[in-house]
């Protein structure tokens, strides 16, 4: 794969500003709608079977009564050195030249090793066949496949939007402009806590924000080299 990576190939990345996140979960809903993620009922959710490609982790800081709640959106970090990739025995989990951690649904046989080996527990498994209560099945996104039971899935950085924009830019014979691609979660975030773009372009908004001294990577010491940078004021 790496031989097709030229210096011009973008490397997609995201910045998550934790100081802006209000924990409203709009991104979670947008991601569900965009990516045909199955809807789990209350019972299934209670069993821990609800599928979310992006989740808002909630943490409490401080001692009562001076507590404050902190929110942290966690999605696949599209690690450059992804521990989920080499463990897959059938190449269902692989790295694209533009820095995405892709999941080939047709290839997945459901051994779930990748799920164990993702330190961010970002991977989701289809325990049953998907199901949408009427009329939700009317709003399935035709650009995205519906996954059957037995398959691993996870955030794709909305690869369908990336590909569409890239193809349009190729037709127009111009590079993809910064901010032209907006994954569903980014587009919907009311506080603009999420920003998406090309990490390889030093002028892009993600690159400039990632240089911020509030920046850090999740579980950085593991050496997974995530494409997502978090920003948080430490005081």
């Amino acid at each position, binding site marked *: 794969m790496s031989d097709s990576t030229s210096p011009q190939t973008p490397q997609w990345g995201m910045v998550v500003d934790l100081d802006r996140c209000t924990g409203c979960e709009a991104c979670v809903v947008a991601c569900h709608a965009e990516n045909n993620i199955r809807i789990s009922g209350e019972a*299934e959710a209670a*069993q*821990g*079977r609800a*599928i979310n490609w992006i*989740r808002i*982790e*909630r*943490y409490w800081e401080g001692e009562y009564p001076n507590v404050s709640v902190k929110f*942290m959106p*966690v999605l696949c970090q599209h690690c450059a050195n992804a*521990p989920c990739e*080499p*463990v*897959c*025995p*059938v*190449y269902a989990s692989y790295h694209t030249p533009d820095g995405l951690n892709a999941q080939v649904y047709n*290839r*997945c*046989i*459901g*051994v*779930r*090793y990748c*799920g*164990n*080996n993702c*330190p*961010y*527990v970002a*991977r*989701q*498994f*289809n*325990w*049953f*066949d998907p199901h949408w209560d009427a009329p939700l099945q009317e709003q399935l996104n035709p650009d995205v496949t519906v996954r*059957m*039971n*037995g*398959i*691993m899935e996870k955030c794709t950085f909305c690869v369908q939007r990336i590909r569409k924009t890239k193809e349009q830019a190729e037709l127009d014979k111009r590079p993809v402009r910064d901010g032209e691609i907006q994954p569903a979660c980014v587009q919907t975030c009311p506080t603009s806590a999420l920003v998406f773009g090309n990490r390889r372009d030093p002028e892009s908004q993600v690159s400039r924000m990632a240089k911020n001294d509030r920046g850090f990577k999740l*579980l950085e010491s*593991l050496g997974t080299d995530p494409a997502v940078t978090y920003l948080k004021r430490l005081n």
Partner: protein
Amino acid sequence: MTTMQRSGWNEMATINRDLLAPLRHVGPTYLTVVCGLALIVVAGAATWVHQIETGIGQTNMHHPIFWSSYIASFVYWIGVSHSGTFISGVLRLTKAQWRRPVTRIAELMTIISVMIAALCVFFHLGRVWRWYYLLPYPSQRDIWPDFRSPLMWDATAIFTYATASTIYLYLPLIPDFALARDRVGGWRKPVYALLCLGWKGTQREWETLSTAIRIITPLIVMVMISVHSIVGWDFGMSLVPGWHTSIIAPYFVVGAVHSGLAMVAVGLYVVRRQGALDDYIRLEHFDKLGKLLVVTTLTLAYLYFADQLTVWYGKIPDEMAILHALVTGDYAVAFWSMILLIYVFPLALLTIPRFRTWPFGMMLLGIGINIGMYVERMLIIVPPLTHPRLTYVWSRYFPSWTELTILSGACALAVLLYLLASKFVPLISIWEEKEGRLHGSGG
């Protein structure tokens, strides 16, 4: 000719009669047990079909516990399969005379438990109907399996082990199949005739056979060690706290031998009772097995202690969370039962010489060790998965009815296969037994 040898020769007919008897006789108890087991197998199979139709959600696995009882069973059965190769391989290599009545019983266990282990992998797959993606077959898309994945090393190792141990069981069976061909007959005669490859018992045939056995024995011991190391590396190669440790391969190998030996103790007891074979499987055999079990208990305890001490002393929070869950947390009951069953009881009881020559006690202890080792397999897999580094997703797990039914079915299948095989294969190697009586140092 000395008196001793003459009495040895006189025994030959008795040995033939005693050891071939189980092949001829099918009693009502046998049939009842076979039918009972078959019912459990059918229940398991039906549940499995249901799981395939509806999805792995029939288990209690959930995010982030992606592996659980099926993989634990896989590891457990692979462990039991080490009984055959260890007992028979190592004892053959060291020319231990007492191995003779034990080897076949153990080797048969090996084959059957490897098959059950493989089956557990199929229970586990999300889309089991696509299992052939694991095979390196030429396809139009040029995608091969990914040999970077420890699961592929695993598949390769298991396949090698299954093949090698089948050969290893089969070679010493050839002379016995020839004997059965001549003395059991009936509908089985042509099958035996085919399987014994026209064995006549010439000097050259015996020499070839013993050379073949001498070559394959060290090989199979090496394969055995590598196989369980690789099963350990399924865990050791991952980033999961609690799995990622270099001691896991030797620990798995010793653990496998521990449960394997314990299973042999159970097997010896049952075969002895059923076949009235007290003259062949003697108290001395239980005694020797007991001594070996003391060695594995101590080695395993040492490795386990070394591993946990390293965790405890290091105090890395990710790993401490798991240790706490085991020692005082959600899994404490399971953890302490395991410690009792696989370390404390064996050590306390087996160091009493009288206990080692009490077959019934040895059988009970064998069952206890196996239950303990099964729990241990679960404890290796589950607590690390329920305690990932991001504490927000912490969780718990206990197997569902679907899992329990399918796994009981698999267990029943193992026993059933063993019972069926016992009507076809002499469970004690007849020629090796005779060889021992004639030329060995008594037994």
